[in-house]
């Protein structure tokens, strides 16, 4: 019975949301949730660097006036976010012992958008499920509104952003994906001052395309160069071009736009999600790293065919590797390994790999691992980065989707 009431409330929420703005969502969600026994609900969204959870109040140009804020590290809402698990606050002495306050992660697939707060009078499985359902619906509503909401963009920023970063955040796919036997996660820093880094991934049938790009320089033109490269890559890909052809099309497009004054290094890869066969090409970039189990790591060699746009005329080699179920693949740019501390010591490739192995071993999800990795790289470099740093991490389960550690 309770389930049916909750389901009906969610359906009415969806219908009501069609002509709502982002600003109207918190009240609309609260009203419909109350019909299903979830009271005082509040929506918190995470900032782009995943450090704070900010309440979406719908008030003011940032839609967050008068709202609360919690840190992702060191708060109960932050715990719910990090663990991707619903958590109840401890019952306060003197309070109604049946009353519970919940923090529920708001996720779309494996992309974490924030947390939902709600109070209930009971604690049983049906109400927990109702909370999860409400959080799922909230995620979809946020996604359907955020693409045309400046207030959402304002709410999730904690610093001013440069033009190149503004372009890059609109260019890249969501930082998290899971499905068809694979999980993908990505992080990019400096989040507010990106220069020429970009990543891309996309699924077509059984093939997961993956790419990372690093445009020379660290100015707005570097951002434009990266945008042109990604657009040319997508354009060629969507017309059925092979990896080699895609990289040639990127090169031609860059030459048309910039002569040979601007170039982009990059890796372009296709992972067959059914067979685990990885095909990739190297356009003058750091080699991909394969992590097998918790011990064995190796760089996958592939002769570099020169940066795209430099027009060196080198042959492009398509390299092949057979992945095994559970393998993880790391694509990255130099800022990750070359970030230096005050004494000039690099974060380094070994520390990078060791960090991923240690944190992504069942303790944390792939995305939480990447959030922690970037926090560690930033910390190593005194809180800011001179160079762009990007990581794209893919786990392939090959028929063992249920074992995916999202």
């Amino acid at each position: 019975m309770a389930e049916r009431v909750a389901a009906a409330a969610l359906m009415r929420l969806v219908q009501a949301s069609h002509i709502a703005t982002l600003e109207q969502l918190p009240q609309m969600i609260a009203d419909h949730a109350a019909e299903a026994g979830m009271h005082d609900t509040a929506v918190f969204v995470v900032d782009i660097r995943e450090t704070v959870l900010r309440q979406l109040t719908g008030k003011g140009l940032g839609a967050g006036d008068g709202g609360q804020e919690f840190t992702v590290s060191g708060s109960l809402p932050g715990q719910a976010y990090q663990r991707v698990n619903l958590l109840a606050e401890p019952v306060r002495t003197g309070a109604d012992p049946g009353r519970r306050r919940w923090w529920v992660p708001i996720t779309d697939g494996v992309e974490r958008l924030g947390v939902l707060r709600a109070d209930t009078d009971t604690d049983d499985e049906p109400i927990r499920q109702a909370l999860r359902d409400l959080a799922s619906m909230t995620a979809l509503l946020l996604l359907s509104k955020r693409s045309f909401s400046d207030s959402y963009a304002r709410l999730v920023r904690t610093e001013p952003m440069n033009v190149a970063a503004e372009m890059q955040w609109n260019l890249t796919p969501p930082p998290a994906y899971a499905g068809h036997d694979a999980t993908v996660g990505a992080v990019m820093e400096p989040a507010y001052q990106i220069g020429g880094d970009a990543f891309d991934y996309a699924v077509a049938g059984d093939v997961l395309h993956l790419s990372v790009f690093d445009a020379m320089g660290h100015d707005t033109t570097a951002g434009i160069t990266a945008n042109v490269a990604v657009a040319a890559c997508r354009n060629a890909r969507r017309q059925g071009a092979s990896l080699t052809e895609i990289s040639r099309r990127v090169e031609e497009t860059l030459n048309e736009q910039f002569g040979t004054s601007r170039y982009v290094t990059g890796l372009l890869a296709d992972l067959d999600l059914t067979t685990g066969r990885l095909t990739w090409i190297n356009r003058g970039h750091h080699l991909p790293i394969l992590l097998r189990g918790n011990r064995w790591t190796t760089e996958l060699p592939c002769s570099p065919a020169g940066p795209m746009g430099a027009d060196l005329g080198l042959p492009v080699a398509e390299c092949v590797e057979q992945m095994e179920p559970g393998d993880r693949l790391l694509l990255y740019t130099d800022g990750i390994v070359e970030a230096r501390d005050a004494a000039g010591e690099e974060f380094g490739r070994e520390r990078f790999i060791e960090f991923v192995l240690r944190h992504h071993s069942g303790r944390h999800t792939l995305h939480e691992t990447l959030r922690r990795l970037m926090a560690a790289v930033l910390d190593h470099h005194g809180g800011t980065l001179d160079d762009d740093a990007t990581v794209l991490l893919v786990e392939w389960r090959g028929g063992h989707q249920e074992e995916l550690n999202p």
Partner: protein
Amino acid sequence: MSTDRPASRGRRAALDVDVRALAAGRHLVTVAGDLDLRTAPRLAHALQPLLRTGGRTVLADLSGVTFLDSTGLTCLIAAYRTARKTGARLALIAPSPPVRNMLALTGVDQVLPSYPTPDAAG
């Protein structure tokens, strides 16, 4: 790619470029210091005029280059392209480890041959 040298932020960039004629149509350009955003134009200024005449050989001694960023690499790629167009010959002499690493990573070493000494360059 970085355009700052992370380990020496704040340090004033220095690059010495010395051009010497070894024989008729054969020049040695010796480069020492950081080859980056601020200094690369100086090397380009030295290399490009020499390479615009076909049939010449230009040897760039990069043994003293302490740092190479993407702008420095761009300068070398542009020099290679000029040489390819005019028929001049550009070769590198004893590139230092940071230069060697960057050339190998990007594949530029496949178009710019390196020799241990000017004599070895033939």
